[in-house]
C-alpha cells in the first residue's frame, strides 16, 4: 500500500494541467481552435513528432541522447517514396524495408556508442549528417542531375494517411507506440534495465546487466520509431523534401523534456512524453491561430523548454532535500576509500 502518490504521477499531472490550461485559453480566445477538425489535425501532427519523441525517450531514459532521429525519419520517407514510385512492391513490404532501414540506422548508432565508446551526442551528431547524405543519394534527379521532388500518386500507399470522417487513423499508430512503449518500459525486463543503465551505469554493470546490449536496444527502438514516423510523414505529405525532418529531432527532445523525461536519464515514461508532445504541437497550433509570426513560435518553444527544465530541477531538489545530507555523506565515503 502506497501512502503517498508517486512523484512521476504528480509530474504528469503538472504537464497535463498545462495542456488543459492551454486548451482553455486558446479555445476561449482563438477562433476555430476547439473544433473537431482542428483537434484531429493537431493529433495528426502530434503523431509524427510524437513517434520521434517516443523513440528518443527510450534513449534518454537509458542515459543517452539521439539527435539523428529527424534524419532517420527522412531516410525512411525517401525509401518509401522511391519504392512506391519505381517498383510494384506491396505496401507492407515497402513499409517493412523502411522500418528495417530505421533499425539499421539505430543499430549503427548503438554500435558506435558502445563498441567505439563514442559519446552519444557526437555519434548521433555525426550520423545525422551521414543519414541526411543518404537522403540526398536516394533523392530523385532529372536528366541533368538536378535534385527534384516527386509526388506519390499511388492511392494504396496514401491511404496510410487517410481519413475517417475528421479523424486521421495514423494517430492510432502513435497511440499504439505510446502504449507499447509504456508496457515495454514498465512490464518487461528490458524496460527495467533501461532505467537501470540510465540511472547508474556502473551499478547496472555490477548487477550483471549487459549494459551495451541494452544501450544498443534503445537506439534501435529510436530508429524504429523514427522510421515509422517517416512512413506516416511521406504518406501524409505525398512527397519528401530533402530537408524534411531536420529540426524535428530537437522538437522531439523538447517534447520529452516537457513531459518529464530527465535528460540525465533514468526518469519518465512514454505517457509523459505523449503529454509533452501534445503540449508542444498545440502550443504551436494555437500561436498559429492567433496569426503570430514564426519567430514567436520558435522563441516560445525555447522558452517553454527553459521553464520546464528549471521547474524540474527545482521540483526535484525540493523532493530530495531530506535525503541530501545522507547522500552527500555516502558520496564522500565512496571517494575516500
Amino acid at each position, binding site marked *: 500500500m502506497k501512502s503517498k502518490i508517486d512523484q512521476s504521477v504528480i509530474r504528469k499531472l503538472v504537464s497535463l494541467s498545462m495542456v488543459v490550461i492551454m486548451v482553455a485559453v486558446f479555445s476561449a480566445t482563438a477562433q476555430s481552435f476547439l473544433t473537431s477538425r482542428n483537434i484531429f489535425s493537431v493529433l495528426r501532427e502530434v503523431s509524427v513528432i510524437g513517434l520521434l519523441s517516443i523513440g528518443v525517450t527510450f534513449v534518454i531514459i537509458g542515459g543517452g541522447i539521439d539527435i539523428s532521429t529527424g534524419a532517420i525519419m527522412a531516410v525512411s520517407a525517401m525509401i518509401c517514396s522511391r519504392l512506391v514510385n519505381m517498383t510494384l512492391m506491396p505496401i507492407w513490404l515497402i513499409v517493412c524495408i523502411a522500418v528495417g532501414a530505421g533499425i539499421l540506422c539505430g543499430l549503427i548508432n548503438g554500435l558506435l556508442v558502445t563498441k567505439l565508446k563514442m559519446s552519444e551526442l557526437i555519434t548521433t551528431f555525426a550520423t545525422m549528417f551521414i543519414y541526411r547524405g543518404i537522403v540526398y543519394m536516394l533523392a530523385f534527379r532529372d536528366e541533368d542531375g538536378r535534385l527534384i521532388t516527386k509526388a506519390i500518386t499511388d492511392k494504396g500507399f496514401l491511404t496510410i494517411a487517410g481519413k475517417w470522417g475528421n479523424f486521421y487513423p495514423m494517430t492510432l499508430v502513435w497511440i499504439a507506440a505510446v502504449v507499447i512503449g509504456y508496457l515495454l518500459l514498465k512490464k518487461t525486463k528490458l524496460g*527495467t534495465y533501461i532505467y537501470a543503465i540510465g540511472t547508474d551505469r556502473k551499478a547496472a554493470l555490477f548487477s550483471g*546487466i549487459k549494459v551495451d546490449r541494452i544501450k544498443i536496444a534503445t537506439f534501435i527502438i529510436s530508429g524504429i520509431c523514427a522510421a515509422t514516423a517517416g512512413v506516416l510523414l511521406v504518406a501524409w505529405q505525398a512527397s519528401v523534401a530533402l530537408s524534411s525532418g531536420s529540426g524535428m529531432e530537437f522538437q522531439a527532445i523538447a517534447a520529452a523534456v516537457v513531459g518529464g523525461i530527465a535528460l540525465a536519464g533514468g526518469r519518465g515514461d512514454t505517457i509523459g512524453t505523449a503529454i509533452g508532445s501534445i503540449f508542444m504541437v498545440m502550443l504551436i497550433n494555437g500561436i498559429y491561430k492567433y496569426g503570430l509570426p514564426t519567430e514567436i513560435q520558435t522563441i516560445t518553444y525555447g522558452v517553454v523548454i527553459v521553464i520546464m527544465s528549471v521547474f524540474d530541477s527545482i521540483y526535484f531538489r525540493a523532493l530530495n532535500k531530506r535525503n541530501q545530507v545522507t547522500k552527500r555523506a555516502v558520496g564522500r565515503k565512496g571517494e575516500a576509500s
Partner: protein
Amino acid sequence: MNTLLQMIGIEKSFSGVKVLKGVDFTVGEGEIHGLMGENGAGKSTLIKILTGVYPGNSGVIRMNGKEIFINSRSDAMANGISVIYQELSLIPTLTVMENIFLGQELTFGKVFLKKKEMHRRAEQLIEKCRFDIKPDDLVETLCVAKRQTVEIMKSLLLNAKLIIMDEPTASLNAAESENLFKIIRNLKSQGTSIVYISHRLEEIYAMVDRLTILRDGAVVGVLPREQIDPVTVVRMMIGKCLDCAEHTVHDAASEAAVLEVTNLCSETLLDHVSFRAYGGQILGIGGLVGSGRSEVLRSIFGLDHYTEGSIRYNGEALPRSAREVSRYGIGLVPEDRRNEGLIPLLNIVENMALPNYDQLYETAFVSGKRERQLGMRGIESLSIRPGDPNIRCINLSGGNQQKVVISKWLQRKDLKVLLVDEPTAGIDVGAKAEIYEIMRRLANQGCIVIVVTSDVEELIKIADQILIMVDGKVFQQMRNENLTQDDILLAASRIKRKEPDHAN
C-alpha cells in the same frame, strides 16, 4: 564449526610490488569474521581477489573444501560470495523490489516480468529479515541505512553463503549501526557467514567471532573472540606500541590571529556551531562521517550556504563566495582531492597556479615564467615527486597529489587560514608524516590550521585543540592533553545514550 571459505597462500603483485604475501584466510559457516588492518595493509586487495575484481597471482580458494576459480563477479556470485557496497549496486530510481531482483528477474518467457510473484517473494524476504521497508518504496527516498538492507536482501536472494561488508557503518549513525548489527546477528543465526571489515575497534569487539589482522600484505594474527582486546589489536596492526607521550600542545600566543565561528546554522545539518581557532595552533575536528565536519569547512570557505551565524577573522566578517574567500587568504584542501582538489589532466604547475593567478600577472597577461617559478618553488618546498612540473596530476600518487593541493595554497603569500579535510585518506605512511610536518610548519608561522579527520590516531597526533561534532552540533571541545583514542571515540558516539531511537 565447519569451514566455509579457505584462501590459502594468496599472493598478488601490482607492477612488481608485492601487495599480498601469501595470505591464508578462513571463514567458518555462520561465522562473523572480522578483517582489520591499516590502509594499504591489503584488505581490499584480498577482497577484490575473492570477488573476482582482480585475479590472484597464486594461491588456492576453496568453498566447502572444493577448489573454486573466481575470474569475475559472476563467478563469485555463482559460488555464493557477495559484497555489500555502500550504494554502488543500487539504482535509486527503481523500487526496492526491482533492485532486489535486478539482473535476476522472474519472467514469463524471458521478456515479461512476473511482478506479483516478485512482489510476494520480496515481501517474504523482508519479513524474514524483519526489515522496515516495503517492496514498492523507491530506493532514492530511503536513507543510507535502509539502502544497505536492500543490498543485503539482494545478496540473500542470490543465496549468498558469504557476505562481505566493507566498512558498513561508515555513514550510519549510532542507532542505525545498532540496527545493522542486529541484522548481521540474524543472518548469522540463519547460517550465513559474514566478513566484516571495519576500522572501528569497538564494533569489532562487539560483533566478531574471530578476527584476522593484516599488516603489509601478510596475516599477523588470527584472534578468537576471547583474545580480542584493544591493545593487542592495535599493536598487531601497527606493529609497534603506540607512543602518545611525544606530543606537545602548542598554545596560542595572546596576539595570535583568531577565526571565530559563531552560531553557524545550515538548512540541512549544522546547528549553532560555534568555536574559535587561533593562529599557531592546529584545530582538529573529529566525529563521525556525516556529523557536519566537512560542511563547517565548506561554509567557512564560502562553498556552502549558511542560514544563520557569522564567521569572522580577527573580527572582520568573511565574504561568502569561494573566490573572494580564497583571495582573502583562506585555502581549502578538500577530502575528494581528485574531483575537488585538483584538475587531474592539468600538470603540476597549472594546478598550483590556479588560485594564484592574481599574483602572476605581468601587465595584461599571465607571465609563464612566474607561473613556472611558482610551480618549481612548490615542488621543491614540499619535495613533490616526481619533480617534473609538466607531469599531469592524474599520474601522481595520492600523497603527491595531496601535496600539490596543499602547495597551491602555500603559494599564496597572504595565507591566513588553511582548512584541510581528511588530509591523509588513501595516503601512504611516508607521505603522511610529511603532510603532518607541513601543517605544523604552517601553524608555527602563525597560520590557523583546521583539520577534519576520521582517523582518531591522527587527530590525537596532530591537533592542539580537538573539537568533536555530533549530528551537526559541536559536542565537545578539548585541549589535546593526555587524551586517548577512547576519549575521542566516546565523545563521538555519546549520541547512543542521548538519543536511543533515532532510527531515521
